[in-house]
């Protein structure tokens, strides 16, 4: 099966709400980053060791939520396409905070900066964290532009979720190192 349609060869692409927009538009940029983040989470999933099943399951849930979030980023406020969309419930943020607390409780308290890296799983989690931060920055701009619109509240929840997600990926990185007996590399002034 071919996966290309060629519909975007002229530098435009379709939003979920049907409008044709330039590929460099903020919406496309935002959900492009979200797509990248989702792919990196797939890489984290495949590089985590076997004794991290609960984290792996959570990553799959996160990937599904990011799809849900992506549809909001690809929809304009006045579009009837909103009827198809379901907002991320605020409870998903709380759930993620709980997961962060659970993992953090199993880790040595952090008193110094650590270098991003370690095991393949930890390294991918650090990459995911940074991609997530970039995505958050783009969505922040989108939220700013859509303030007061019909999708304002939906975007706000996505923004908070992304913020917690980068924190979650940070603790996942540390947990991945711990799970394979590799200490985090503490930063030292060169």
């Amino acid at each position, binding site marked *: *099966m*071919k996966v290309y*349609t*060629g*519909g975007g*060869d*002229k530098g*435009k692409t*379709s939003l*979920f*709400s*049907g*409008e*044709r927009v330039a590929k460099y538009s903020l919406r496309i940029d935002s959900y492009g980053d979200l797509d990248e983040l989702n792919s990196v989470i797939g890489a984290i999933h495949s590089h985590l060791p076997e004794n991290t099943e609960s984290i792996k399951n959570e990553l799959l849930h996160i990937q599904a939520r990011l*799809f*849900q979030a992506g*549809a909001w980023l690809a929809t304009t406020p006045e*579009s*009837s*396409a909103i009827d*198809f*969309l*379901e907002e991320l419930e605020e409870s998903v943020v709380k759930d993620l905070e709980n997961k962060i607390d659970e993992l953090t409780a199993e880790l040595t308290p952090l008193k110094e900066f650590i270098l991003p890296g370690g095991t393949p799983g930890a390294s991918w989690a650090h990459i995911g964290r940074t991609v997530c931060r970039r995505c958050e920055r783009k969505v922040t701009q989108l939220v700013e532009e859509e303030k007061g619109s019909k999708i304002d509240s939906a975007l706000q929840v996505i923004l908070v979720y992304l913020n917690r997600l980068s924190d979650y990926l940070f603790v996942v990185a540390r947990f991945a190192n711990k799970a394979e007996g590799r200490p985090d590399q503490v930063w030292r002034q060169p």
Partner: protein
Amino acid sequence: MKKGRSNFVVTLEKRRWLSQDTYEVTFNKPEDFFFRSGQHVIFHMGGEERDYTIVSPENDSCLVFLVKEMKGGVVSKQLAGIPIGTELKMTGPGGYLVERPTQKQRVLVATGTGIAPFCSMIASGMNAAFLLYGVRNQESLHYNSLFEGTALHYIKCLSVEACMKNSSTCYDGHVTGFIKDILPVGQYEFYLCGKWDMIKDVTHVIDTRFPDANIYSEGFY
């Protein structure tokens, strides 16, 4: 996305051949099955899954599908041969090629069995300004009577067979050519359904001629 898909068991009630390789199958509509015109379902047969768009209107008592028997196609071949009364697992509905409120004029563009969603939409009362139906020849045009009695400008685009002389409702060429050369200037929303190659070509033409138009599309291979 809203969660709307469920599993159902439906029974084949009728099969009607429309041409040498295309047929219509009718199933009972489960009481708790609701869909919007333009949506599709998934049929599960012999370990395979295929999407089929519902042809019948939203308030009909049965579910009708248009199927083209494909060379080497597993499900289309099985659906062509299973006895009336056979029960099938069906999942759905799904898909987003559905009516969107608009102030603009709708242009529906279909090739081949891509006509399916528009049959349901028109039969359910959706207003559209144009329906461009691209096929190779007259024999491949289905559901003419549904479209001919409406206010819709129904244009048959024949890519192989020639149109009758002086026909104002027939165009010699592909749907792409009609949009590029004939479709009047206007404010449009396009709904596209057909093979991805057509959707790609039509999208390019729309981007050039109608850059402000919305495009909703669903393609297949």
